[in-house]
């Protein structure tokens, strides 16, 4: 599991579940805080499609922390004001880096639930897709019709 996948699951998971996974790790391993949990900002860099250039759209508040677990480092960064969750994420990340994490099955189950939720929401939105019945043959329907017009 790469870091993007790991942090997607953790970011979308309830803080209680993340805390419980982290607590289990801390029962058996020595964790020291390298960077105290704190709030900071992340600036969003966006590519605009018109001229393919970059611009800063605005900032988001993120919570971050870095820990060391038996010599292996781990970090946690997540959107919002939840420094505790960022710390727990860092513990899980360190445990994975140290190859002592045993909760992978739980993460994969969470991921499935998260994907399922998004797909159900998506289904609600797709129900609002329009089926046009043109009452006028002159109306350009798509790009090719546009060329003809």
């Amino acid at each position, binding site marked *: 599991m790469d870091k993007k996948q790991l942090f997607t699951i953790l970011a979308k998971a309830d803080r209680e579940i993340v805390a419980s996974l982290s607590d289990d790790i801390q029962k058996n391993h020595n964790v020291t805080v390298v960077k105290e949990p704190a709030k900071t900002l992340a600036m969003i860099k966006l590519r605009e*499609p018109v001229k393919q250039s*970059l*611009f800063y759209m*605005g900032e988001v*508040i993120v919570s971050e922390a870095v820990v060391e677990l038996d010599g292996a480092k781990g970090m946690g*960064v997540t959107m919002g004001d939840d420094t505790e969750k960022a710390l727990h994420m860092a513990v899980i990340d360190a445990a994975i880096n140290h190859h002592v994490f045993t909760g992978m099955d739980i993460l994969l189950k969470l991921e499935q639930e998260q994907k399922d939720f998004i797909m159900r929401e998506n289904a609600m939105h797709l129900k609002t897709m329009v089926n046009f019945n043109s009452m006028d043959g002159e109306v350009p329907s798509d*790009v090719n019709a546009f060329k003809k017009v």
Partner: protein
Amino acid sequence: MAYVAVSGGKEAIEESIRLLDYYRSGTEKDIETEAIENKMSLLVDRVMSEAGLYSRTYAALALKQCEGSVEEAVFLLRAYRSTLTRNYYTKTVDTDDMRVVRRISAAFKDILGGQILGATYDYTHRLINFDINHEDPARLHKEAQSRLAEEQPQEVAACPRVSDELKKEGLIDTFPTNDTQPYDVTTNMLEFPCDRSARLQTLSRADTGFISGLAYSALRGFGQIHPTVGELRCGYVELCVPYLFDEKETIYIGEVLMTEVECFNEADDQDKLKLAVGYGAVFGRNENKAIAMAVIDRELDNGGDYPTQNEEFVLMHGDSLEMNGFISHLKLPHYVTFQSKLDAVRKTRRADHE
């Protein structure tokens, strides 16, 4: 004309601030920040957009603190962000990958990926629904959740852009990828002429009313364009930052809801062989602001004598904090300057009588 410092009114000011609590207290009925965040979403979106800070919970809290004043809430968020470090810049967000919740085109009825109306007030009757007075919020939420649970999951697929099709035809110019680091108007003063990145950042966080009014003026004739909304899309984009311990890895930190618009306009070349595109992108669901931004973007590209085509006019007067701060300062004591004006008027009147 000099400024003179005066003191006094300390107790009155303290009582005035205390009186705000009296006004804010209303009745015993509270409005929780969770309720503002989730049930006043469009207001929260507007505040976040104008503050240039995406934080639903803090925007809701700020709105509660200032009785729902948008400009005060923007001020609070801007002030708060100024106390924080900025330790991260996201990896480049590409809205091609947006998880779309609404997407329409006024240019073509059949677009690849389809027209998805999503949740919109466009087709509502705009009649006040008095039943909401007696609504059971728990029941409403439960019903919405059970509707969701009954849905058959559908894979999320990225929607191709309407403009891409026209680019393939050569009807819209295609530009090479430009990786020049953006100008940041939060850390640098605007200079004119300014970079496109400075323009887009400034417009994206501009006051909704200001740029909507400006765009309206351009459409009514004080400008050159009457665009067609080529594509309006609203949805979630993922934010990722670099992973500290391995440069090949990235960390997902969350997703933001945004609205993006591409407006197609008359040709910008002399032979009128092509269409030109204006661009708008704002936090949250805020369609008119995104369209207005796209109109203004195109007007500024055009250049000309109308206010909407004047970069300095548009970009220097639309920041919520700056405009409201400056207007608000007129309430501050101007005793000395006003006395001076009064003296001048009196002297002129005396001279006229003599």
